[in-house]
């Protein structure tokens, strides 16, 4: 009887623990192949032959056709530069340098990755040619649910959201030095009460 119980215990720990640890590493833990720059994160090797086994397993579960390294790279921000979750009740300012790229786009998505709905024909998205720049070529983008002058990224759905920055044809994805990559900072300006 004791032997049976002990065997059962060992089996439960082995199967349960094995499955749980896989689930945790794939769904909850931060990915080891992530490229972190401030609040932004990208996965340049996702879905390639170079990916580590965990990244590979993660890719198998999600599927899709991620961009290749010569095409571009997608950075995601879930938080502002102070690690606080982006929410539609707050206004954020994005400023700072944009890395060298042929083109960039910035759009807001909900937590499942779907682009936020348009606001009166205005998509929750901006691109390189739309932004108004200062005399020194720099620019500021305001992400808010309320209209703002200048470069306004309209956040149309209440709740938390994420920002996706897509850089097309950029040396970053093909292996420029990580320390030299500068991405815009996201600063919380104000919040509705």
């Amino acid at each position, binding site marked *: 009887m*004791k*032997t049976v*119980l*002990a*065997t059962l*215990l*060992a*089996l*439960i*720990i*082995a*199967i*349960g*623990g*094995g*499955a749980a*640890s*896989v689930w945790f590493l794939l769904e909850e833990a931060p990915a080891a192949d992530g490229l972190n720059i401030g609040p932004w994160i990208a996965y340049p090797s996702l*879905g*390639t*032959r170079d990916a580590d*086994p*965990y990244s*590979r*397993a993660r*890719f*198998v*579960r*999600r*599927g*899709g*056709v*991620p*961009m*290749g*390294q*010569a*095409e*571009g790279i*997608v950075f*995601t921000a879930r938080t502002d530069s102070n690690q606080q979750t982006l929410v539609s009740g707050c206004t954020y300012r994005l400023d700072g340098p944009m890395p060298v790229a*042929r*083109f960039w*786009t910035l*759009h807001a*998505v909900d937590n*499942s*990755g*779907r*682009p936020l709905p348009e606001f009166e024909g205005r*998509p929750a*998205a901006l*691109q390189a*040619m*739309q932004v108004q720049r200062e005399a020194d070529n720099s620019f500021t983008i305001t992400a808010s649910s309320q209209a703002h002058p200048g470069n306004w990224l309209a956040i149309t759905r209440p709740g938390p959201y994420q920002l*996706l920055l*897509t850089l*097309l*044809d950029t040396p970053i994805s093909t292996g420029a030095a990580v320390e030299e990559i500068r991405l815009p900072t996201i600063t919380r300006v104000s919040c509705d009460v």
Partner: protein
Amino acid sequence: MFRLLYAFLVGIIGAGIVHIAIIFLLPANASNDAWSRIAAIAEPYQPVLLENVEPSVLPASQRNPFLRAVACRFDLSDGPLRVSAREAVPFWSMSLYDRSGLNVFSISDRAAPGNVPDLLVLTSKQLSELRNEMPETFDQSLFVETDVTQGMIVLRVLVPDESYVRQVGRALGAISCKPI
């Protein structure tokens, strides 16, 4: 007591083995890779616009309001694949995926002579055969040499704003993806 500790230890080691086994067996048993998903909805060489497809083909997080994409499956044993458009687009890039959906090669229009997407995907054997007698029609083509026989290409095109919607729409609608 000792027996319990022993069972616990065996369980932990077993959990490690199960963990590694799952991680390495997951890719081998997957059926929701992009190639299989596209195969379920389109014939080989049939261009598929990746816009109205199910999220299982293209997860929402990989969609971009400024990019349009078209996918096309191929089999190089039918001969080299030519992907071409008739119209110029503001920016295009292409990725090649193997049978299991892994991205093996990508290229952007920076490498191409013109703004009209025109690619020839072939194996090194086909390339050397073609080199012997290069037809003039491939002057402007970008050659992509690969070891993938069965695979899929995805062509992404930038639509910077509304004024490009019609032009890009026409170009994507007329994409040809055929063996030569």
